[in-house]
């Protein structure tokens, strides 16, 4: 094995190339795709997946998973939106509730997984169902329309995009994503939470026997995931006009898929925030791009599934090589 793997052989770099190739391909084949407005809509609809993906990277690295982020997102958004539109809460307070609900579900998942030793897959599958039902309860079964950009309280929508006087959009959301990715990459690589997240995923028992409070740090991975599901709920509310109860199932798969494509190992211990970030764009490009070349949503799912299998295979092959070593 080489001392340090070069940047050109790293999965992140390869995935970045894939993103560029996909983008170039769609742009060449479809004139409609290369419109500025298409670019903007790809970005707009990517933010909530990017945020979920950043968060879910942490439980994935511990060797677990968080399936509750998709339906959770809708649930938090419905709760926050309900308080704002029906109860007259200030938008800022509604946003805070949205994020805090995510944190609460994260704590719930984390405690069950880390302290009660429940399997992460089943635990978060259950919270996935719980949040789906809870969302409808909060909104009394109705869709919720957060304030529009031109209404009072619509300011939060310009966190992610600004529309100038001559109707061009500036995607400041993307800049925000880059900042958040940098921040969380720092957390993963330079703080104790990050260090122990990776350590738990690599060898939980050895980490415990080093005197690390494994239960706490294991919980924190799910709290981070929940927190980012909360942030994703804000991004979702800011981009979509209405939020419908009962939706959201499947969002988590796009986020988890992005993370896996970006190099998070399905067995834990390996992964990066920036990798997950890049990986999400493979999924977003396929989702938006394929219809432009005449392939409908069904095909997008089939192709995304195949790409995922490819990414997991790369991971397994890499691991086999290490074992042989």
């Amino acid at each position: 094995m080489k001392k340090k793997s070069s940047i050109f052989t790293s999965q992140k770099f390869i995935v970045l190339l894939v993103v560029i190739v996909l983008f170039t391909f769609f742009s060449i084949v479809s004139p409609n795709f290369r419109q500025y407005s298409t670019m903007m809509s790809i970005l707009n609809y990517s933010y909530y997946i990017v945020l979920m993906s950043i968060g879910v990277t942490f439980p994935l690295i511990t060797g677990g998973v968080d399936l509750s982020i998709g339906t959770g997102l809708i649930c938090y958004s419905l709760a926050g939106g309900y308080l704002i539109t029906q109860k007259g809460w200030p938008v800022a307070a509604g946003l805070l509730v949205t994020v805090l609900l995510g944190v609460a579900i994260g704590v719930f998942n984390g405690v069950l997984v880390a302290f009660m030793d429940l399997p992460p897959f089943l635990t978060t599958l259950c919270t996935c169902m719980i949040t789906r039902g809870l969302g409808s309860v909060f909104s009394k079964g109705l869709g919720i329309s957060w304030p529009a950009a031109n209404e009072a309280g619509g300011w939060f929508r310009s966190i992610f995009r600004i529309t100038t006087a001559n109707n061009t959009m500036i995607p400041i959301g993307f800049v925000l994503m880059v900042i958040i990715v940098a921040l969380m990459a720092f957390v993963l690589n330079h703080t104790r939470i990050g260090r122990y997240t990776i350590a738990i995923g690599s060898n939980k028992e050895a980490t415990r026997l080093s005197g690390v409070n494994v239960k706490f740090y294991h919980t924190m991975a799910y709290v981070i995931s929940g927190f980012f599901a909360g942030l994703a709920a804000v991004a979702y509310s800011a981009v979509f006009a209405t939020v419908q109860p009962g939706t959201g199932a499947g969002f988590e798969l796009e986020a988890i898929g992005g993370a896996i494509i970006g190099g998070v190992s399905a067995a834990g211990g390996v992964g990066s925030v920036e990798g997950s970030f890049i990986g999400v764009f493979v999924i977003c490009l396929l989702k938006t791009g394929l219809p432009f070349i005449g392939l409908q949503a069904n095909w997008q799912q089939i192709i995304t599934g195949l790409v995922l299998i490819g990414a997991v295979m790369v991971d397994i092959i890499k691991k086999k090589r290490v074992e042989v070593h």
Partner: protein
Amino acid sequence: MGDVILTMKDIDKSFPGVHALDHVNFEVKRGEVHALMGENGAGKSTLMKVLTGIYTKDSGTITYEGKETEFHNTREAQDAGVVIVHQELNMLGHLTVAQNIFIGREFKTGIRIDDKKMNDEAKKLFDRLHIDIDPTETMSNLTVGKQQMCEIAKAISHEAKVIIFDEPSAALTEAEIEELFKIIRDLRKQNLGIVYISHRMDEIKVITDRVTVMRDGTYVGTLITNECTKDDIINMMVGRVIYEDPKTESAVPENAPVVLKVEHLHAGKMVQDVSFELRKGEILGFSGLMGAGRTETARAIFGADPKESGDIYINGQKVTINNPQDAVKCGIGYLSEDRKRYGIVVQKTVAENSTMACLENYMSGLFINKKAEKKVAEEYVESLATKTPSVEQLVVNLSGGNQQKVVIAKWLINDCDILIFDEPTRGIDVGAKNEIYKLMSRLADEGKSIIMISSEMTEILRMSDRIVVMCEGRKTGEVKIEEATQEVIMNLATRDIN
């Protein structure tokens, strides 16, 4: 005793770097129980694995029922009638007793599995063994003893002519052992050849007809059980090898302060009422045979496993250790026998592993101070002479000896005063072993106190200032190095508890 059914002659087997079997001889007669004895690593299991086709011999001959034979896998051996009853039971807990016994060779009518016939056949097997087990019972509802009976039933269902018992009594209660012996005597009467591997001297005397002793992969000799004494067997097991460089006197003064005192520690079956003291600057050897409960004792002290009762004092102060965090706070470091599983995080760097136990000392505010981390890791790479291109190297790329040094560095960086080395040189080559020994001596000279669990007699006699010997979860003795000989230790390690 009848005629010879199985003869192994001049069996030779090498693995890279190890001569595991050196022209070993062994035979079994029909209607005899033949004990196979030896220290840990003497080659008993390897010999049986060669017999049953798990390993291929390099040379030598196996004669079975008068014909020269070589089994290529356990299936072939089974079909010919040579079966092993393993120490760890290979049972599928969710299936029934009968389903377990006939797994892989179910009776069928058409494509449907004939459970009724399997139950009937299983019942017949149990009748033959004079034991009462319901074939339709779910396996996980049975006690360990009963599960073992099922293993035996499974073995004889193969029309076994030779049955090998690999430490069958390790997990059994007194009553269950009695029942096991009844079955073995029964099988002997039915003219089967029985190989009985065990460490328990009292059992050997009770149940076996002959004893073959192995040492360091060689055949030492065969005795008739009721013509020899326990001491004869022990002498054959330890041999007359001159061990390299044994310690002749303790380096620790009589009045050195006690840093760790353990009183009446209980933790499951493997740790029963263990008490001892560890002095400053001392290397306290923990000797015993496999399954004596030494690792379990260490893990209980370290808080890795729960304990039922017992007190621990550090420097005279009573402490509560409920988990490894508590132990680390008390200045105890534990170096596991299974480094890859419990000691290091192989996919992380030397530096990251080094600071694992005390990362809080290498933080600037919320952030890890990687510069300081690198500096301290480099410091210890130098002082322990760890061979690594840099501290950024992944631990997986280091040799066993150097991985061990990284674990030592982890505990030294955390300023641990009490270090528990569990089989510190397992899987480490000879040169690196000496380095680890020197390092341990140096640490003791610097005032660290060390508990060294080791299954190697050489290591125990060379390193220890004092030796605690355990057998089946109990401390059976404590020996000063001045009085320690292999015979004394082996006697304690095989002592009959009752």
